[in-house]
């Protein structure tokens, strides 16, 4: 572990030195982290964490996380110099279809972490990027500046300011679709936002992807713990968030 810092009152940034062999990552993929054990807490499972950033040349891998319970609380105890046992990269990340030129990223909470490497990839491909960052308060809007540094047009909304509600956002997004010609949606971190994008996407014929979460055990596809139902031609099917996901076709999510 290289560094471990508070980004704000709730989120911590964990920076690891990692071997190049695990750094062929796709945005949206995740690692499975073995959290440390103490007398007071013995997290049993690994914990899945989206890749916040990775740099193969520099041998660097970062996670951005929120202390949600015993596993993440145990992670938060680690200090630079400690070792962390990780498995990954795992799962299927985002896929930027060549026809998507003006993507819109809509992220809330930890979703901001998951979408960060995608924003970077959009920037690298020279796409015209728009991002809506939603959070409870301004302080928790972590990646907005990062998104801006990738040349994104960033719109921030917060519960505190009262502009993160469904009505406001739907209007905002429909406006963006019409004015900026948005042609793909990417989202993570809120079921409500996902549903809204599904509807707007269906209405305007805009495709997209969503990164989902689900309670996991194995993280590599063996245990069938992490399934969710999806709409496919053949009817509803259960797919594994750890394997067929965590990134899925936005319109297929049931």
């Amino acid at each position: 572990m290289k560094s471990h810092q508070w980004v704000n009152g709730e989120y911590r940034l964990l920076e690891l030195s990692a071997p190049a062999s695990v750094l062929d990552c796709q945005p949206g993929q995740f690692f499975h982290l073995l959290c440390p054990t103490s007398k007071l807490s013995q997290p049993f499972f690994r914990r899945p964490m989206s890749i916040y950033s990775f740099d193969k040349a520099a041998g660097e891998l970062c996670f951005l996380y929120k202390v949600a319970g015993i596993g993440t609380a145990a992670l938060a105890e680690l200090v630079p110099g400690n070792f962390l046992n990780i498995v990954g990269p795992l799962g299927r990340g985002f896929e930027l279809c060549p026809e998507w030129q003006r993507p819109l990223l809509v992220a809330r909470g930890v979703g901001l972490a998951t979408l960060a490497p995608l924003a970077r990839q959009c920037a690298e491909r020279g796409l015209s990027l728009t991002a809506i960052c939603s959070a409870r308060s301004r302080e928790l809007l972590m990646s907005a500046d990062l998104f801006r540094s990738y040349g994104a047009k960033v719109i921030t909304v917060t519960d505190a300011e009262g502009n993160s509600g469904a009505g406001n956002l739907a209007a905002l997004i429909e406006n963006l679709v019409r004015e900026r010609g948005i042609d793909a949606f990417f989202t993570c971190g809120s079921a409500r936002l996902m549903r809204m994008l599904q509807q707007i996407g269906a209405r305007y014929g805009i495709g997209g992807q969503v990164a989902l979460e689900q309670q996991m055990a194995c993280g590599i596809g063996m245990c069938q713990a992490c399934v969710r139902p999806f709409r496919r031609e053949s009817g509803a099917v259960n797919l594994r968030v750890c394997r067929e996901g965590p990134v899925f076709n936005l319109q297929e999510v049931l």
Partner: protein
Amino acid sequence: MADLTTTIGSLTLKNPIMPASGTFSEELSEVFDLDCLGAHVTKTITRGKRAGNPIPRVCEVDGAMLNSIGIPSKGADWFLKNTVPFYAAYNAPLVVSISANTADEFARFAEEVSVPGVAAIEVNISCPNIEDDGKAFAMRPGPTGEVIRRMRSATNLPLWAKLSPNTGDVVEVAQAAEAAGADALVTANTMLAIAIDARTGRVKLGNIMGGFSGPSLKPITLRMAYQCARAVAIPVIGCGGIATIDDVLEYLIAGARAVQVGTATFISPTTMPRLVRELDHALEARGLASVDALVGTVKHADEAISLAEYA
């Protein structure tokens, strides 16, 4: 290099380490070469397709986990067309775990999966027997014997009966399976348990109750392996809570001829190849030439100072 081979009836395994059903799948081939294992054991399949249980399907508890995955299954056809060919690329014998609702269905399904490429059938009798009010077959010697007997006449493949820790009649069930023609016993499946979130008051599994597995289960399933190894002549395959080489040694010492590793693979996907290596070292360190030399060597506690007798 010690001789790691072990024989389970007519099958010789290159080593005694294999996965437990439901904690192993083709995906693990991306993590290590599956041919380092003594055998491959599939997730339990049913003849027809099944969706499995509602989520959440797993939760963690102190030093262990609960699962109520259920038996999502893509059915017999998918198994024959996809799973069997996949494992054909490996030398390790393929063991298919199957489940059914009645003894008769078990027999017909056993026949159907008795195809080249399948080396043995593991009989998951922890599923409800619809002819016995939904009690699992493995709860009683009668239904257990009945299932195995019917399957015995339907296939020539070795039959491994997978016992349940939920029964109070372990020894009787084990003997019934042996008498009915089982070639080996697997001890054991998960133990029925529950987890409740004290904060929210909610049960943690979608199916309410689920199966307890992982290190905390070991003292119970190790006891079953010990009891069964003494009660039957067929080989016992230990299963339950195995994560370290000491766990493997304890099962072998208790009388198991092989072991299955389940939950530990979730925590560390390379557990099994590590255990194979460590088993070799452990045998050498003890000056033992083979796995066989360790099996069933359990000794009684030697401190046993005879205590004062009141009565």
